[in-house]
């Protein structure tokens, strides 16, 4: 099947899966427990408060209506209101998400790096003690409960050696703020601004012409019309965005990922601090996940290293590192990529426990908080978000893999 067919069919497959996911979560969280409001309040203390909550959260409507509200709400980005303070759940999730994202990315990087390195070493020492040791290591790290590992690391590095902080993401004064550029009207006021906009438009125009020249196209009327449109677009963009930024006092670029934000801010001290806090949690999660990467790298390397051209390369006296990394590792690349996607679900699951252990203010800890507070709407919203995240990531990985693997293309 062609690449296009595959992409389309794969995307189409995701839709029913997400729907099943949504419905399952709805069934489990709304239908199964009976009355979430009752569960939230536990005792029938305050019937007025309970009735109020029901109305405000739309829980007094018939189930089918609730279901439609739920699904439609999801499309609009509305995940309901929290039972605690009636603030939008989506907002809370959105603000907690970057922390989890940062943790997830770092953990995955660590897991892959450790996994590949040990996998290569293991394959080079095939069936010798080093190999067996590394394989056992991979198995054992999987069997360790992630929070236990976290606590041990906390004990050793935090309490025992005092090298690294035990929890949290950073202390409040030190939160990176990202890139902030204060902007105001340039000298000369609006006239200069409009002139600069014209320059922007001319710039786009110039690029278009340059590209055309390089391609040796003959300039036709169509080209002139397009270039005029580009000029206008450029002008409008510069003028519009510029005005927007100026009226807001400046531009602020912040990703929510402290590592990037601190670099954008240009503050290396904050960067170092971020890393200090980030290190233990991502190491914990990375170690637990690395086992599978060790395994697939090892088996891939073993297969490749047996191939003739590897032996031939060795016979020509090429360096060990050239042979291993240059020749054989290329083959391990693709499976590692797929596995990264498959492991994403495990990553999120592990993140929940890791965040709890290290008091990391991410989505996982948010979930646990909401559970302790019996905030059922928030729990439901979070579970849905997790599910959608996993679906999207696996879709992305599948598509990327299809693009990179020539077999599927043909």
């Amino acid at each position: 099947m062609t690449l296009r067919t595959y992409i389309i069919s794969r995307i189409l497959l995701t839709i029913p899966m997400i729907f099943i996911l949504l419905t399952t979560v709805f069934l489990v969280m709304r239908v199964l427990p009976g009355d979430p409001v009752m569960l939230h309040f536990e005792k029938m203390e305050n019937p007025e408060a309970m009735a109020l909550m029901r109305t405000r959260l739309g829980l007094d409507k018939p189930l089918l209506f609730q279901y439609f509200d739920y699904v439609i709400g999801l499309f609009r980005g509305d995940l309901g209101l929290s039972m605690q303070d009636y603030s939008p759940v989506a907002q809370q999730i959105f603000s907690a998400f970057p922390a989890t994202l940062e943790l997830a990315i770092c953990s995955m990087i660590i897991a892959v790096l450790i996994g590949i390195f040990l996998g290569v070493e293991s394959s080079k020492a095939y069936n010798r003690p080093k190999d067996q040791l590394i394989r056992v290591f991979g198995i054992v790290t999987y069997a360790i409960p992630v929070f236990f590992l976290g606590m041990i690391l906390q004990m050793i590095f935090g309490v025992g050696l005092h090298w690294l902080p035990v929890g949290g993401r950073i202390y409040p004064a030190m939160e990176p703020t990202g890139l902030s550029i204060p902007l105001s009207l340039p000298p000369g006021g609006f006239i200069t601004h409009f002139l600069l906009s014209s320059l922007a438009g001319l710039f786009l125009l110039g690029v278009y012409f340059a590209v055309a020249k390089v391609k040796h196209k003959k300039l036709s009327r169509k080209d002139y019309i397009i270039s005029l449109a580009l000029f206008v677009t450029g002008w409008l963009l510069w003028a519009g965005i510029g005005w927007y930024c100026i009226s807001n006092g400046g531009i602020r670029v912040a990703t929510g990922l402290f590592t990037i934000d601190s670099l954008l801010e240009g503050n290396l001290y904050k960067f170092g601090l971020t890393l200090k806090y980030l290190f233990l949690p991502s190491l914990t999660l990375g170690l637990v996940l690395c086992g599978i990467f060790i395994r697939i790298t090892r088996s891939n390397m073993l297969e490749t290293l047996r191939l003739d051209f590897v032996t031939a390369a060795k016979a020509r006296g090429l360096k060990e590192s050239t042979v291993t990394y240059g020749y054989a590792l290329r083959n391990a690349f693709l499976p590692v990529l797929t596995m990264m996607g498959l492991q994403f679900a495990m990553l999120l699951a592990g993140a929940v426990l890791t965040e709890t252990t290290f008091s990391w203010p991410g989505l996982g800890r948010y979930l646990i908080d909401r559970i302790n507070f019996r905030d059922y709407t928030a729990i439901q919203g979070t579970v849905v978000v997790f599910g959608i995240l996993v679906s999207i990531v696996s879709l992305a990985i599948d598509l990327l893999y299809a693009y990179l693997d020539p077999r599927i293309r043909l």
Partner: protein
Amino acid sequence: MGNMTQSLMTVDTLTVEYWTRKGKIRAVDNLSFSLEKSETLGVVGESGSGKSTLGLSLIDLVPFPGRITRGKIVLNGKEILKLQKDELRNLRGKEICYVFQDPMTSLNPVKKIGDHFVELIRTHEPQVTKQQALERAKKLLRDVGIQPERVSDYPHQLSGGMRQRVMIALAIALNPAIVVADEPTTALDVIVQAKILDLLNALRDAYGMALILITHDLSIVLQRSDRIIVMYAGQMVECAPSTEIYLNPKHPYTQRLLKSIPNIELADQKLEAISGSPPDLLNLPKGCRFWPRCYYAFEKCRREAPPLIETGTEHFARCFLYEEGRKA
């Protein structure tokens, strides 16, 4: 066996074993020989005779689970098996080069031909620039009969014969003392075979290197080599100058091998195959390893394993027929 102190390379009681789960297999059993400068040595044997293992052991690249359990290999005064990893690596590709059997899989499919050469030359001579290396590559390709423009092609764009030539060019690139060619023609068709063999010989004359030709085809080495070693079940069963092997084969196995070569001049030649099959190396017969297939086998052959016996000047055979006091 030649003048030991002057030989280019000497192999002394080399034993290579494969340690498998089912047991230890002796692929090469107590082999000793020497190689002189600019000499062509032919190593002949059936599949399973240990000849490929022998070749690989000369550069210490016997694949796992094989290991060299005994013996010495001395090249230009250096003991190969005792070298450090880096020294060994320096040797490979530069002083002793290996041409592999299957050109299809021996070249890196994602690297251009020229890059193979650049990589090889710059690993051993780091001061050479990429440009210079490419120039040398082009010259080498010309030497083996390939158009120099092919340096920018990928292996899959070349035919089998051309790939084998590239392998040979890589082998002679750094002017080695020895080139070991393992079945250099088995994967090729007959016409190309002859060309490749002629090429090897021509290069040998031009560059003054020694050549070890490993093959199962006796006819190839009869004409083109100075000396021939015949291997059977891991042991050397005969060793002699090639003319001697042709005119005066001593070991029954060698004799049968000769008889099985088709001769175009004999109109009514009956090809005789050797009955039986090579022995299972895990269950070797007692006594001489060849006796179950030997026409001349007698009582002693079944009981004792024959040693190498000198049957003439530089002619050795492992057979009781040539024992002192026996009439062949």
